[in-house]
């Protein structure tokens, strides 16, 4: 098993049709970032560059456990990345492009569920491109909401095609849906490479950054079935046992609706902070560094999902105070 440092970082690239994925891929492949990047695409036609490190794959979903959404993985990735890893010396970053209509969850889950991929690769970030000009038209599309909800980096692309008010409005909308992602307005997907590759968004050691404004502001309640987010902040220490029980029950009852959760936890009687994340039912948590001087120990907890009952979730969360 490779040490975390030696594991190959993987960036997952999502975005609705026409949002600029191809432009970004071509930029990644031609940019002088000093990284040898292998790219898995859906169709060779997508990239205009003749590159032996561009590999075509058919998105093939494997249901690992009787169709449970949380246990679906991308089977083609298991096979192709397995083959590709024998050529590990040829590249040092992997980018996976998903089709415009794909739910990103199976791709993400593949890297946590498959024993080989889990040992040899690490998910770096989910980068989602948003077409500022057209996103309003397909905002209610399930896949668009999932792509926004799973993003670690949101590129609000085509900023040159919309006015400032429209851009701000969409930015606020995406924030409400996903307060965890880093939002970067771009034109021609011209984000700096270090904001896309080597982000380490899935690293538990990396503190999560929640927009402080989001934590305090009131949110509009969306209609039923909508994807949204809730965030809690609590300065009183929490009980690890109670939190564990609450989260376990939550994911077993609501797993398919809970896209992502992230938290920094202040645990009763512990000088270290804990960090936590989940993707559907896959949970990962660890005891992190000690709280620093000048830092106010507190718990920050964000849930992104569908049909979230904020009052009930808040009650469940607050019952975990030690």
């Amino acid at each position, binding site marked *: 098993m490779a040490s975390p440092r030696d594991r190959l970082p993987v960036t997952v690239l999502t975005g609705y049709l026409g949002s600029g994925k191809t432009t970004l891929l071509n930029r990644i492949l031609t940019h002088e970032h000093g990284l040898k990047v292998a790219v898995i695409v859906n169709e*060779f036609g997508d990239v205009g560059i003749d590159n*032996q*490190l561009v*590999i*075509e794959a*058919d998105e*093939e979903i*494997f249901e*690992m456990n009787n169709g449970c959404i949380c246990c679906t993985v991308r*089977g*083609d990735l*298991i*096979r*192709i990345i397995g*083959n590709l890893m*024998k*050529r590990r*010396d*040829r590249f040092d970053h992997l980018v996976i492009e998903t089709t415009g209509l794909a739910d990103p969850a199976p791709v993400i889950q593949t890297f946590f569920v498959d*024993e*080989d991929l889990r040992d040899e690769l690490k998910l770096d970030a989910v980068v989602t491109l948003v077409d500022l000009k057209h996103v309003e038209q397909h905002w209610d599309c399930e896949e668009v909401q999932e792509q926004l909800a799973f993003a670690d980096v949101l590129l609000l692309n085509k900023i040159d095609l919309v006015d400032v008010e429209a851009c701000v409005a969409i930015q606020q909308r995406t924030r409400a849906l996903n307060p965890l992602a880093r939002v970067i307005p771009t034109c021609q997907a011209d984000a700096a490479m270090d904001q896309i590759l080597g982000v380490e968004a899935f690293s538990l050691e990396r503190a999560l950054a929640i927009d402080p404004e989001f934590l305090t502001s009131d949110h509009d309640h969306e209609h039923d079935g909508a994807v949204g987010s809730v965030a809690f902040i609590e300065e009183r220490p929490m009980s690890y046992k109670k939190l564990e029980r609450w989260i376990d029950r939550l994911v077993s009852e609501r797993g398919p609706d809970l896209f992502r959760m992230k938290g920094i936890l202040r645990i009763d009687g512990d000088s270290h902070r804990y960090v936590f994340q989940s993707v559907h039912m896959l949970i990962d948590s660890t005891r992190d560094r000690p709280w620093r001087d000048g830092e106010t120990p507190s718990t920050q907890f964000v849930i992104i999902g569908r049909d979230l009952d904020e009052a009930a979730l808040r009650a469940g969360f607050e019952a975990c105070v030690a």
Partner: protein
Amino acid sequence: MAAPPTLVQERLCGACSHAITAQAWSADGELLAMATAGGELLLIDFRAGCEEWLRGERDCSLDVAGFSADDRFLMAAGQDGKLLLWELGGSGVRPIAFDPLPLGGHWLDAAAWQPQGSLLAVGAGKQVRLWDGASRSLRPESQELKGTVLALAWSRDGRRLAAVCHGEVLLWSPDDPVQAPQRCATGSAGLSLGWSGQGNLLASGQLDGSLMLWPDGGAGRGWQFRGFPGKARALTWCDQPGRLAPLLAVASADIAVLWSQQDRGAKGWKPEPLVLHEGRVHAVAFAPGSSLLATASGDGTVGLWDGRGRLQQLLEGDGQAITSLSWRPDGRHLVAGGEQGQWWLWPVTLPPSVRSRPPSPGGFAP
């Protein structure tokens, strides 16, 4: 006939530039082919005492290689989706390359020659294509599966072909197009497939850490065995008959599990975990003509076991993970390949505890 060569004793190892992905012996045991993740294909001719790089290093890997049953053809395929074929004229004669055959741009990693026949089955995406050595051409028809072909296996008599994808195994007789293919549900994706001689049992090692077994060439109701520590990534059948069925070895996580049928029915199958390796077991292979089992591991060692799961010997390379194994058809020489391109050829003396038949004709004497 030339005198038996002594080259094997002189040269026991060598190196390619990249991870060895496949190793294959010709039926007469005189030729050895090795493919690598760097696209190399090395052909070693033991009788003539020479070697030739049929393909040099390139950007696309090769992932399968094999000789036809009559040793007339060598095939290799990999990342670029093209089927490579050579016509062989025997020892000392340079192979003649056919034009590469594009099969739709899929990464090709499942292919198998028909035993006692001239067909080559290749998994290309969701299709199985057949190349016929008799006509030297690709058959126009193809067999469709509902998912990407992950593994292929011919029955020992070469009449039945099995292909596995996520959810099912498909079985058919390529020379009997009238007969509809038979489907066996698996509930998971098959990673490895193998057909026994005795009993005509079909085994599928699966992604969900289970093993499926179908008696009577897939006609009987399948058994499923769970509890493997990881995916069942490789399997091998012993060619020696057992009381009810031959031995079966399955690689999963750091162990190999030796299965024997001691009674009729599902409960009659007994697993014996072979615990030794400290890294993933990548390959398992029974020596032809005996119950000697070789297991290759990421810890850089090869274990040799008798048919009751007792370790006979531990072979070591130079520390690099061992990813590939292939027995010479005489069952007396084992070649192994590493993830950094090193290969080793070991002459193996059978231990007394291993049942055996005489080595197949054509091989050089130990």
